[in-house]
């Protein structure tokens, strides 16, 4: 990875995709000095001492935000550190990562929040922790949400643990609403999904595997929507995977509920057929479902039902992944491939601007992040990418410390080139 001081850089012939920029859709030169965008125009003269960067089909947008990823530090540093996740984020085009609080110890109090914020100061990208909704993410007692909010947290989640007690979730929504905090709650009905390994359907039946029924997700979403109506507040459903869930959220949004939702990029590409050889690299939670579900997810992005696309990056070391399916941990590494996966899966259905909004303005709005526009006088927080570039992913060159990627050797369309973040250019 090449890092150059971004004291003086000019990007040549970059197509700007930023609907808050006066240059949206135009191909321009962009001169940046220090951490600021100084000048945008056509055929800008070379500033004194500036370095120049260009690439065929170069596009730029606001820096991408990954609204759901797991980082092992503190506690599971053999899987991923804050530094290795940052490098993987750069390779994947992200300038901001929102990490789940499922570290050891959990990020369920102000001290843990401040630890991450302190570490963030020395990292090349922004890493924002979620605070836990409940102590130890155990779904029993509410964590100190306001104290963590005072430390700078705007969104809270228990990761992939669902709060089974509806009264507790009601109280959390009410309590969080006093400061307009975002409650991010994973949708599952645990009693219906115990020991499940994949989507429940024709393929799980043929493989003899216990499945996640789609209704387990939909029932949880419907319950949470009722609680949202009753308690107030803002609810984000981080990972939708089934057609029924998308339809439920579409109806809720139409009725004016303050609900948002996301999808992880890999769900736009894979279906439950991927499990045919019991390969643990395809074991994820929620599971890959049918092609009908996959297409509904794409439709959901296109019509605005699904607000954001995330990586759901979940680094798992070989010791916990390379096992017979029942013993393998859920999840894949995806920071470096999230954009490429989404672009490859959706290029025939979703225009690039919509895709970029799901990685930039939508998550920024949900999280209350003030993202600078690509405009003169604004701070430079930018992702560089080629939306139509074919390329092959090589897991051996991954920056992540874990190698649980199903994409080794995969041919993608759409390549991140690097980011401009914290006054520096970082190339993939």
């Amino acid at each position, binding site marked *: 990875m090449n890092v150059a001081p971004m004291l003086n850089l000019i990007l040549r012939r970059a197509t700007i995709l930023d609907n808050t920029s006066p240059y949206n859709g135009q191909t321009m030169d962009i001169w940046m000095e220090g951490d600021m965008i100084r000048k945008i125009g056509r055929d800008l003269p070379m500033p004194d001492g500036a370095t120049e960067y260009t690439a065929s089909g170069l596009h730029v947008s606001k820096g991408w935000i990954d609204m759901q990823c797991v980082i092992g530090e503190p506690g599971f540093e053999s899987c991923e550190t804050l530094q290795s996740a940052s490098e993987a984020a750069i390779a994947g085009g992200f300038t901001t990562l929102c990490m789940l609080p499922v570290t050891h110890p959990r990020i369920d109090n102000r001290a843990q929040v401040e630890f991450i914020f302190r570490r963030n100061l020395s990292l090349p990208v922004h890493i924002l922790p979620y605070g836990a909704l409940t102590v130890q993410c155990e779904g029993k007692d509410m964590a100190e949400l306001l104290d963590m909010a005072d430390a700078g947290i705007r969104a809270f989640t228990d990761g992939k643990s669902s709060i089974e007690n509806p009264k507790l979730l009601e109280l959390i929504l009410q309590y969080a609403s006093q400061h307009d905090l975002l409650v991010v709650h994973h949708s599952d009905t645990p009693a219906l999904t115990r*020991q499940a390994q994949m989507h429940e359907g024709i393929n799980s039946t043929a493989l*003899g595997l216990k499945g996640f029924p789609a209704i387990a997700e939909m029932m949880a979403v419907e319950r949470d929507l009722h609680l949202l109506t009753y308690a107030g507040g803002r609810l984000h459903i981080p990972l939708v995977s089934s057609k029924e869930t998308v339809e439920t959220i579409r109806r809720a949004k139409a009725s004016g509920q303050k609900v948002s939702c996301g999808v992880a990029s890999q769900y736009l590409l894979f279906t439950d057929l991927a499990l045919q050889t019991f390969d643990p690299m395809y074991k994820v939670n929620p599971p890959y479902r049918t092609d009908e579900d996959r297409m509904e997810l794409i439709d959901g992005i296109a019509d605005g039902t699904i607000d954001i696309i995330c990586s759901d990056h979940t680094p798992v070391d070989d010791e916990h992944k390379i096992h017979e399916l029942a013993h393998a941990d859920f999840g894949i590494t995806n920071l470096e491939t999230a954009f490429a996966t989404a672009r490859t899966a959706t290029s025939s259905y979703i225009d690039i601007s919509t895709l970029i909004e799901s990685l930039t303005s939508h998550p920024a709005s949900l999280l209350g992040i003030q993202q600078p526009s690509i405009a003169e006088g604004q701070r430079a927080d930018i992702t560089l990418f080629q939306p139509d570039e074919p390329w092959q992913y090589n897991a051996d060159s991954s920056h992540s410390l874990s190698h649980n990627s199903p994409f080794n050797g995969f041919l993608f369309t759409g390549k991140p080139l690097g980011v401009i973040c914290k006054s520096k250019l970082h190339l993939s």
Partner: protein
Amino acid sequence: MESLSTRHLTGIKNLTLQDVELILSTALQFKEIINRPIKKVPSLRDVTVANLFFENSTRTKLSFEIAEKRLSADIINFSSSGSSVSKGETLVDTANNILAMKVDMIVMRHPHPGAAIFLANQLKKYPKSAHAQIINAGDGTHEHPTQALLDAFSIQQSCGSITGKKVAIIGDIMHSRVALSNIYCLQKMGAEVCVCGPPTLIPKHISSLGVAVSHNLIETLLWCDVANMLRIQFERQQLKYFPSLREYALHFGLTKKKLDTLNKPITIMHPGPINRGVEITSDVADSGHSIILEQVENGVAVRMAVLYLLAGKHQS
């Protein structure tokens, strides 16, 4: 010599009809051999077979062991209790360690679906283990291919051709290790298959496999030529899937009284072990229509055929 299309036997699903027919025709020859005064042949001399049983088994393990001995293989046995598995060793490490002792074939029983396919795929990555051949002796609720083959062989022996026969698989389909393999095998051979049991013990999407689904035992018995009664797998049920054994036996237990109402003969099978008085009463299990002990005998011949054909594949 004809040979199988596969190096491993991980399931029936990926076998061709020709593979199945080759195994059954070879089994017929071995059945003749094991009924001779001298039952042993030298076919697997200098071949070492490891029986890896990560879950309890009595008849399958004994059946494989006898089949291996009749073929003159060298045998080592391994069970998970008291082994390094209980100390946290992975499946791949266990297999690699055993294969490092110059073992040629692994017969594996495992509690988790897909374990045999997973192991076969993983061993390709290890040059010293890549030669090994895997025979699945039951992987959780996925497949138990040799049971399905011996069941098909037993039906052939009892009823003649399988093509067009109506076979009912009755009982705990949900937790069974044999139901899927039986469905795949019987369908490949041209039989019609129906599964019967309470809805809570039948996978919701099973009809997508092309089988009929029934919750009425008498109607199913009237329909079928062969009834394969499955055991209630209490050890795999985290919940009570039906209120009581009494109620289950009343509705789904096979009794002589129910058989007598049919006015037609039915071939009765059971993969064992039998819960007498639950899914089948003693007077049915021990009756002339039952081929339960023939299944056990045929199991040895079928497993000899599988071992012999796979070993030939290896040597070729």
